């Protein structure tokens, strides 16, 4: 049962692996840019605000393309 619970816990955060990876990549990139001083704070905020909804849209569009309708 513990294995099933751990699996379900991971499933809370990861459903579409590419979406999860995209979120982590965006956050990692913005963190690196901000912490290294390359990007000012406003640019970091703008990147997050644009990239995260874009990642969601890409994931949904990809699923819609792949899935047979009303499966």
């Amino acid at each position, binding site marked *: 049962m513990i294995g*099933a619970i751990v699996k379900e816990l991971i499933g809370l*955060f990861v459903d579409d692996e590419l979406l999860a990876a995209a*979120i982590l990549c965006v956050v990692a990139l913005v963190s690196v840019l901000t912490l290294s001083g390359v990007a000012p704070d406003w640019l*970091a905020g703008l990147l*997050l*605000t644009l990239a*995260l909804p874009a990642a969601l849209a890409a994931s949904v*569009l990809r*699923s819609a393309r792949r*899935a047979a309708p009303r499966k």
Partner: protein
Amino acid sequence: MPNLTTIISVAGASFAASFVEAVEALTVVLAVGLARGWRPALSGAAAALVALALIVAILGPLMSVVPIRALQFVVGVLLLMFGLRWLRKAILRAIGIVALHDEDAAFARETRELSEAGRGVAHGFDWVGGATAFKIVLMEGIEVVFIVIAVGAGRGLLGVASAGALAACVVVAAVGAAIHRPLARVPENALKFAVGVMLSAFGLFWTGESLGVAWPGSDAAILAFIALFLAVAFGLVALLKPRAAALA
């Protein structure tokens, strides 16, 4: 000091998300109760609540030790993953690509599987029924605890978030105890859609703030993010639903 917008957003997000989780847990606990008996159903649920209380008791004090920026960052990223996952699924359900969650169907399936399962009785206790109730209440409870921490910790509003979650659980438990049926009429996908939008907005806000972003309007930026994710989600539904319908 958090403003009223933040307090209402935190309480609302916590209530709505916990409501959905509690409805899902109630469905399975009811199925256990009707198929295997109320003793394993209630014992399993009670044991899970004790386990949850232990988790909270252990994790709770750690929250005050972690620096607020680090806490906001971790919580923000987890919220983004959790919220965008919920929102993605809700959009796919709204489009018609993924089937809507049906509490009546889930209840019928659980009841049938539990009725067909071996008795699994040892020492006079039905362990199959008890374990099923334990697992669902623990899993959904962990989600509720995470949601409370995620939406409440970033602004020191754990009490507000806890009150929202507790209210949702009490309402669902009271209605479930009164009608002894799953709450199939709850518009679950609409709730998940709304919660996904709110959690994603909180995740974006906390993540940015932890990285030093001074959001315009401070906490009011959360409302702008809610509007942004709503616009993206509705736009995707409007774009893809006719196509999915045409292909069906």
